[in-house]
């Protein structure tokens, strides 16, 4: 049996042990909580950055910060150009767009479609020469020449019918010319989305997206948009039965 002194000493020793253990537990809990808070903050920051779109924004280049409008020369932030939507591209600051008012597919006068070839307009060519290797260009792709050749209306191609329209107009038979033009427009309209589908698969194999208008196309206005680097534009391989005109797309307001 313990006497008074022994029991008192034992009680105080146990109280000290208990307090030391509690202190240690508290320390451990504080450390664990701090680590958890750090992890949570990191996760929240990650989610915030991801949802805020900060990750998809290209960092500003030295040239831009100095007031030069030339796009960044840094490594491309777009490993797959087909991933962004058209409206997202519209918001991207470092994409090179054409100048002037949006033409919505009006073929530049100088460009003439050639089978098996993608013609690049002079405006786009000059933009390509001033940009860097990884610069992304907004490109309006006109495929009216392809549509004119591939479209068959009552056994005739659109190109042949266009010649007929010219002849009828020359003869003053405007109403007949108008009627044929309407037929071409209708046929172009109905085949537009089919053709876009085909182009989409073709462009996707080159890592490019195809963005089109809702209205379809008309007799001399069959276009879609894409976003590509200089290398992709210059080395674009056209199928033998296709003819494209690449021009700078103007940012839609």
């Amino acid at each position, binding site marked *: *049996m*313990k006497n008074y002194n022994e029991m008192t000493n034992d*009680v105080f020793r146990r109280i000290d042990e*208990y307090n030391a253990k509690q202190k240690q537990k508290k320390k451990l809990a504080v450390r664990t909580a701090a680590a958890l808070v750090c992890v949570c903050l990191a996760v929240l920051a990650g989610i915030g950055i991801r949802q805020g779109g900060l990750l998809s924004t290209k960092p500003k280049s030295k040239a831009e910060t100095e007031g030069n409008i030339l796009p960044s020369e840094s490594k491309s932030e777009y490993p797959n150009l087909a991933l962004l939507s058209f409206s997202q591209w519209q918001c991207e600051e470092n994409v090179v767009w054409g100048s002037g008012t949006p033409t919505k597919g009006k073929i530049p006068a100088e460009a003439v479609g050639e089978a098996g070839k993608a013609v690049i307009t002079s405006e786009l060519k000059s933009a390509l020469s001033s940009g860097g290797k990884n610069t992304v260009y907004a490109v309006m792709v006109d495929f009216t020449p392809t549509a004119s050749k591939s479209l068959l209306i009552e056994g005739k191609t659109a190109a042949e019918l266009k010649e007929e329209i010219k002849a009828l107009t020359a003869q003053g038979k405007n109403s007949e010319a108008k009627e044929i033009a309407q037929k071409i427009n209708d046929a172009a309209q109905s085949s537009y989305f089919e053709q876009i589908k085909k182009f989409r698969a073709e462009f996707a194999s080159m890592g490019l997206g195809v963005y089109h208008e809702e209205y379809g196309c008309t007799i001399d206005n069959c276009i879609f948009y894409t976003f590509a680097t200089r290398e992709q534009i210059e080395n674009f391989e056209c199928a033998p039965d296709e003819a494209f005109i690449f021009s700078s797309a103007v940012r839609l307001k």
Partner: protein
Amino acid sequence: MDNGAESYRRFCNDGDESGLAEIIRDYKDGLIFYLNSFVGNIHTAEELTEDTFVILGTRKPKYKEKSSFKTWLYTIGRNAAIDYLRRISRHAEISLEEYGEIISDKENLELSYIKEERKITVHRALAKLKPEYRQVLWLIYFEGFSNKEAAVVMKKTVHGIETLVYRARRALKIQLEAEGFVYEEL
């Protein structure tokens, strides 16, 4: 006399360790005997008494002065004993050597705490009664608790304690008579 309430206040509020030492000095032996009536082993009772003082020193339960400090302290001890009995089998075996030691320790403590020979005889007879009878008789006849205080410690009603005391006294009388001892005060 504040029965330790002031000592406990000094310990809790001022961190004065001598306050707890005074409580240990004043209540150690009585609490051991009371808890012995509970667990039936003087060494376990001693450990539980120590545990009770450690609870006072670590958790620092609040003494609200609804009962005397002694009643409150014995209630904490009783709860510690109930926890112990829940954890450990009551039928744990002890060796003969250990048993001899227990008897000897118990006798020494009886001599120092109870002192009177006839009370020691009664205390030994208590060991043969039911635990509940042992507890109530210890609290009332050895610790001087009133029925109300004993009711608080044992978590019973005053009427329940009165009935228990009546039965316990009758059982003790029978036990003492069986041992050839006549105790007139019972």
